[in-house]
């Protein structure tokens, strides 16, 4: 431990700083790399771990496995879109990395292997009803994708990667929905109120869960596991920030945090309510959502009136001090 401390803390201070090392070097210990010679292509926050399986015979043309229709009736080819979205995002990230990577691996290889994982998990979602969020579902998905069932071994843990994948895909679809909505608003020239926008966004996002409602409580449990919790919290934070961004939030003070915290709480409570809702088309859930949004609006108004009252009281207090000072004849301090 002393050696680690010296190596990691003391020596960097001593050595010359201009060591040409990429910021986010991947060390083999932290990434569970199965074989050697894997390039540090991705930042720790990227959703991609790189494998050395090079499954060339597997066709990379995304065939038309049907995207599930969301309950609002929007059809997406977002699987392809999200893959290419991820690729473009990764390509953006890797162009800088390419200059710094030490070996001859290209980003293409990484893209192939990331797409494999996505393909397996996408197919595995079809088996969730049978096998819930488990390795069995993933291995059935692998078989449906044309690979051997044991390829589920590339995923660590139980069905955690499947749940996280679903959450990420849903968040990407929400992002597309919000982008379209903002574009439509710009074209029509009508600005939706942010509370209205948030309501629509939360409803859209919750409706994406509806096909998996029977197993969703299991999935929520999986997301709360200690090894998954950082990633699921990150996903929630990103989703909430996205929603506020598209709703037009431009705050730059502490309300940045309170807004996002409030929205996360709103989403969580509505999701929980929805688990137990048996009404047709989840009507009660949307009414619950409306009531919570009204509560928030009331709280905002109350806090506003408190602060104006506080200001007024402060001014009143000060004015009496000033009057007293003038009466008693104390001069203004001159420095």
């Amino acid at each position, binding site marked *: 431990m002393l050696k680690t401390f010296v190596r*990691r*803390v003391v020596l*960097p*201070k001593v050595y010359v*700083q*201009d*060591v*040409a*090392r*990429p*910021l*986010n070097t991947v060390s083999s210990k932290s990434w569970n790399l199965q074989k050697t010679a894997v390039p540090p292509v991705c*930042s*720790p*926050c*990227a959703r991609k771990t790189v494998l050395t399986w090079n499954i060339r015979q597997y066709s990379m043309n995304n065939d038309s496995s049907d995207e599930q229709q969301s309950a609002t009736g929007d059809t997406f080819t977002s699987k392809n879109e999200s893959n290419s979205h991820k690729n*473009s*995002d990764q390509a*953006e*990230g890797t*162009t*800088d*990395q390419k200059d*710094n990577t030490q070996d001859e691996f290209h980003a293409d290889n990484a893209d192939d292997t990331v797409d494999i994982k996505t393909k397996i998990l996408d197919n595995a979602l079809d088996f969730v009803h049978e096998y819930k969020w488990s390795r069995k579902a993933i291995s059935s998905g692998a078989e449906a994708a044309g690979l051997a069932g044991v390829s589920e071994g590339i995923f660590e843990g139980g069905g955690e990667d499947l749940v996280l994948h679903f959450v990420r895909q849903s*968040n*990407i679809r929400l*992002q597309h929905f919000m*982008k379209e909505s903002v574009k439509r608003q710009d074209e029509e020239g009508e600005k939706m109120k942010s509370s209205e926008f948030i309501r629509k966004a939360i409803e859209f996002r919750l409706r994406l869960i509806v096909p998996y409602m029977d197993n969703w409580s299991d999935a929520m449990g999986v997301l709360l596991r200690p090894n998954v919790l*950082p990633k699921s919290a*990150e996903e929630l*934070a*990103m989703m909430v*920030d*996205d929603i506020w*961004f598209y709703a037009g*939030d*431009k*705050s*730059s*003070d*502490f309300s*940045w*945090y309170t807004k996002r915290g409030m929205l996360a709480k709103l989403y969580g409570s509505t999701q929980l309510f929805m688990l137990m809702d048996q009404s047709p088309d989840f009507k009660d859930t949307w009414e619950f959502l409306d009531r919570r949004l009204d509560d928030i609006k009331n709280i905002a108004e109350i806090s506003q009136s408190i602060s104006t009252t506080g200001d007024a009281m402060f001014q009143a207090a000060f004015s009496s001090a000033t009057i007293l000072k003038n009466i008693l004849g104390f001069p*203004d*301090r*001159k*420095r």
Partner: protein
Amino acid sequence: MHAAVLPSGCSILSRRLLTLQSCLKPFQLCNLSTLDDHQKKIYDRIIRIDHAGEFGADRIYAGQMFVLGKTDVGPLIQHMWDQEKHHLQTFKDMISKHRSRPTVLLPLWNIAGFALGAGTALISKEAAMACTVAVEDTITKHYNMQIRKLLELNGDHDELLSTIKKFRDEEMEHHDIGLEQNAEAAPAYDILKKTIQMGCSAAIFLSERI
């Protein structure tokens, strides 16, 4: 080259914190900026700390004006305060433009800045000027470091660079004004200046990360 971007002595722990912070950064869309992941992290950090710094400076001047507003040095402090307000507004706009995260410690800097400004102004006018000199000195050095980092970073960073350069020049101007106003005559000038600068460095360290 990338290691030079982080402050010296940046340990693995703070590097993990940096990556964890960037985990909290949302999924970037392509049309917003042409920065890659690494540059986005740097921008996030830079904008966060600069916003926090200008916010603190704004509060310090507010504290000074609260005490010294009616004196003969009032208009001068008001002039410097107006420039800081402009800086603060610029960084606020950058936060929403680059979707960067403001620092959690803003309420703390609100109180601490006002207390520092009002406290030094209550000691004497020269002490207030000494506070200005100390803070502007730290901020100038900080901006210079950021300019160096941005110049080393590959890509086109003209907008941010020109903004920081302009603000750095104005902060240097404030520093010189403070010295002209007899800051060195303040009681315990050296200790006061060193203490304030240490506090500012600690604030910069914290707000860069949190």
